[in-house]
């Protein structure tokens, strides 16, 4: 009867475990740690702009084929393009530039030529109009090479339109159309630019897998046909795929090793398979419940939640552990129901303090922390209920292997606290105080992710050649009308131009493609003032050079007409396709656009430029996130202090004030000593250290409670020892993660748990406690 029930349970646990593992591959795991953070902007238009640009960026993938020989680079690029086109993972693979592309550009701007001037020309015209235009006229006739965009000299005798077109901030940077492809020649090598978009969302696992496979195929095809060519690629999807891969690899390795360790430990301790299987069943149920709740609430599971989930193994297993430790000790006098009844207060108190800690996290407006809290609370609650209900059911009979280890150890045990040990602990506490005073902080956003070095290298190489813009920092420009937006953009770009730290520091603004109506009118006026003055200077100059009268006539006509290039007209032209995302158009507060940045820009230059123009907001995601992390780090510290205070209150009802203080001593030490160690070592404390301390608090409180409830002679020591070892197995291994956030999380937990374990005897009641088991 008993046996059959056990098998049913084991079957269910097995199925749950397999389902969990299978789901892990299907579950959308969010690896972008920035996604864990709340909205950084108070302004809804700013948040919308950020999301808009992120959407425009996230599917893009940029490739460059390079070789010493131009023909080789072109062949490699063609091979890449055909393989990528054949794959379902990509769409809009762009390599060829249609021969008519430059004509389309010319045709878009030619009708408005009188109002279009490049910045240097506009300045020269203001300083010395006649000289500037005479120079421009002769230069355009004497230049040894043709202009990039072929223009009829009759339509642009002063080369002003050619100058305007040459200044357009094309995303290609050094790349220009050559033999139908975008090519650049730099440092003795020829490069060909390709771009593509992922067919699916770059956050979806199947998209990532398909993209990585197609790219590998394309690379190997290119290597086969053109062995000397080099292929560089960058795109959010590649980083996401690499992060996902690393994360899952680490999770399965760390999770696997810790599970194996826990299993072995329990086997050795109890010399029976039953506690092992039941312990694992409790963990599996907890993790499954946590996952289910998170998926039901948020729809996706975050990497960091998964990490905490793995480590939940370490806490959830404590509940069954204490039960089995007690059974072991009791030997033949074991009575399941009575024992459980006796244990229940300790279990409940332990659960409540843990839940209290996590509830503090839940209260914060921080989606990432909320998810972790949700996961942990659901998981712990489930493990608690499972321990309470399942264990007395399946482990009724006394332990077969009697108590050798457990009994021998428990009375004096390794945890008995001789005087010298207390003294040592006191010395340690005093010695650590200066460490607490030396604590430093670090809220740098880069802690959140360590991009794959190979990918980062390729991205840097591509950025050096192209004008790839940064998606994380941009300007939002708002005004009442479209033309006012363009005017503000013009003021901002002038401010930026004067503050640019290097020629590589660029920006992309719609107003470079479509000057404001006012700017176009000003330009027409400035040209007309010089060319169409009373003396007819412009006409005379054109005649002197040899131009037919029609040229001067058509130019005067153009200057007198009010033909103005409008944003709506430009948006409807094919040439605007790559830049349309910069124009947000009508918003709740009026009209808005964004200006993206490329190359290096110091933050203070950007802030100064933003402050110089009204209606401009600098959206700096990394800086905003760093500020937020700092705020939450402080919030966590307060939450922890509150949780300790509340626990003291809670425990004082049962143990009195002194007893409550003693019970919480291990847990307070476990929080304070790792902090002191970090201070001593000069390691800056981050949000993730505090996150770990939050868990340490829950664990330390558990140890204190079990020790106190276990009796004056340290009867619970065996259970606490096992719990500490399993927790260290679950968490300590996280210190080896390659993500700095997770590694510092693991290390802090390790230090905290070891401290809590060593200090747990401090929680013991000095005399046998009077409160009878409920």
């Amino acid at each position, binding site marked *: 009867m008993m046996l059959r029930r056990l098998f049913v349970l084991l079957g269910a646990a097995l199925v749950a475990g397999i389902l969990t593992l299978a789901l892990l591959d299907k579950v959308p795991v969010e690896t972008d740690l920035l996604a864990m953070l709340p909205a950084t902007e108070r302004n809804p238009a700013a948040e919308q702009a950020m999301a808009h640009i992120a959407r425009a960026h996230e599917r893009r993938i940029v490739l460059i084929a390079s070789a010493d020989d131009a*023909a080789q680079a072109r062949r490699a690029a063609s091979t890449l393009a055909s393989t990528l086109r054949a794959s379902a993972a990509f769409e809009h693979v762009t390599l060829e530039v249609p021969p008519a592309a430059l004509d389309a550009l010319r045709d878009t701007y030619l009708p408005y030529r009188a109002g279009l001037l490049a910045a*240097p020309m506009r300045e020269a015209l203001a300083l010395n109009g006649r000289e500037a235009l005479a*120079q421009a006229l002769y230069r355009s*006739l004497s230049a040894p090479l043709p202009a990039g965009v072929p223009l009829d000299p009759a339509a642009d005798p002063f080369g002003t339109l050619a100058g305007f077109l*040459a200044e357009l901030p*094309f995303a290609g940077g050094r790349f220009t159309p050559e*033999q139908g492809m975008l090519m650049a020649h730099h440092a003795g090598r020829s490069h060909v630019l390709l771009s593509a978009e992922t067919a699916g969302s770059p956050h979806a696992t199947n998209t990532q897998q398909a993209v990585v496979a197609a790219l590998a195929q394309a690379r190997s095809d290119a290597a086969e046909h053109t062995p000397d060519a080099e292929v560089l690629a960058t795109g959010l999807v590649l980083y996401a795929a690499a992060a996902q891969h690393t994360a899952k690899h680490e999770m399965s390795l760390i999770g696997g090793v810790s599970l194996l360790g826990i299993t072995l430990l329990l086997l050795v301790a109890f010399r029976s398979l039953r506690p092992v299987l039941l312990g694992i069943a409790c963990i599996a149920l907890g993790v499954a419940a946590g996952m289910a709740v998170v998926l039901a609430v948020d729809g996706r599971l975050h990497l960091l939640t998964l990490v905490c989930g793995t480590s939940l193994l370490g806490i959830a297993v404590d509940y069954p552990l204490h039960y089995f430790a007690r059974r072991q000790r009791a030997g033949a006098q074991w009575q399941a129901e009575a024992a459980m009844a006796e244990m229940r207060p300790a279990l409940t108190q332990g659960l409540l303090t843990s839940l209290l800690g996590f509830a503090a996290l839940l209260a914060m407006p921080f989606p990432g922390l909320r998810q972790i809290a949700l996961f942990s609370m659901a998981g712990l609650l489930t493990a608690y209920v499972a321990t309470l209900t399942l264990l007395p059911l399946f482990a009724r009979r006394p332990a077969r292997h009697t108590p050798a280890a457990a009994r021998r150890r428990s009375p004096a045990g390794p945890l008995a606290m001789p005087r010298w040990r207390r003294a040592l602990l006191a010395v340690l506490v005093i010695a650590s105080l200066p460490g607490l005073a030396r604590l430093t902080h670090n809220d740098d956003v880069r802690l959140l992710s360590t991009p794959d070095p190979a990918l980062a290298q390729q991205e840097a190489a591509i950025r050096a050649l192209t004008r790839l813009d940064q998606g994380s920092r941009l300007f939002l420009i708002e005004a009442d009308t479209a033309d006012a937006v363009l005017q503000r953009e013009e003021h901002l770009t002038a401010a930026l131009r004067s503050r640019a730290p290097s020629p590589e520091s660029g920006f992309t603004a719609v107003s470079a493609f479509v000057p404001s109506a006012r700017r176009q009118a000003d330009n027409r006026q400035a040209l007309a003032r010089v060319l169409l003055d009373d003396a007819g200077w412009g006409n005379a100059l054109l005649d002197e050079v040899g*131009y*037919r009268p029609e040229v001067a006539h058509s130019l005067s006509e153009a200057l007198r007409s009010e033909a103005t290039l409008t944003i709506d007209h430009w948006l409807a032209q094919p040439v605007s396709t790559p830049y349309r995302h910069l124009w947000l158009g009508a918003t709740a507060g009026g009209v808005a656009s964004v200006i993206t940045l490329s190359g290096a820009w110091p933050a203070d230059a950007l802030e100064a430029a933003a402050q110089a123009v009204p209606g401009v907001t600098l959206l700096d995601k990394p800086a905003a996130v760093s500020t937020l992390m700092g705020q939450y780090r402080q919030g966590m510290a307060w939450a922890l202090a509150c949780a300790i205070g509340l626990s003291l209150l809670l425990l004082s009802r049962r143990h009195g004030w002194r007893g409550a203080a003693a019970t919480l001593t291990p847990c307070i030490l476990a929080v304070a000593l790792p902090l002191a160690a970090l201070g001593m070592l000069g390691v800056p404390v981050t949000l993730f250290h505090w996150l770990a301390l939050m868990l340490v608090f829950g664990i330390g409180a558990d140890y204190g409670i079990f020790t106190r409830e276990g009796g004056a002679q340290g009867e619970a020591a065996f259970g606490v020892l096992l719990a500490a070892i399993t927790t260290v197995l679950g968490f300590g291994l996280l210190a080896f993660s390659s993500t700095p956030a997770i590694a510092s999380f693991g290390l802090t937990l390790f230090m905290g748990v070891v401290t809590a374990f060593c200090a747990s005897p401090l929680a013991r009641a000095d005399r046998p406690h009077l409160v009878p088991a409920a």
Partner: protein
Amino acid sequence: MTRRGLVLLALLGLCLSLPARADDALLAQITTRVASSPVLRADFSQTKTLAAMRKPFRIAGHVTYARDAGVLWQVTAPYAVTYLIDARGAAEIDASGQRKAGGGGDNAGAAQAARIMQALLGADLAPLQSSFALAPIRQDAGWQVTLTPHRADLARHLARIVVRGDTAVEQVDILEATGDHTEIRFTAITHDTRLSEAEAALFARPE
């Protein structure tokens, strides 16, 4: 088509390819002849005949061609301006040899045009075969090569280029698709083995 027809067609193709080989030999001869001096200096006179103009527009100046460095194009009349043309494109340089911004720059196909220009002045024409059909002939004491673009993007704007010369290129004619015509004549050509220090300093423009 019959089998005999195919054979005939193949033979025809073979015959057509024979002169091409002769052309290659002649092109190689021309290149060798001009390449014997690594540095050439000359005066140039450029005449643009544009549909939009009622009279040709002339400019004159001095050119220095260095096989390994590029071309220094100094316009002296009617307006003084100096350009430096190398593998990266054309850049305007001021009196002190500093590169000026916005002088045509490295963008918009300038590098490609610069390579064509250098190949023309050095008569190193074989590399241009990927873009042009080359028709060389012997002429008087010297030679003449007609370059007809076979790439669509070039042919849209360029009808043909004719290069004429002997131990150096003496004349380049650029005929645009619109009918506009640019003629460049080189006179007072001198051969040298190396650049003067002042010239070398101008060529060494920073990256």
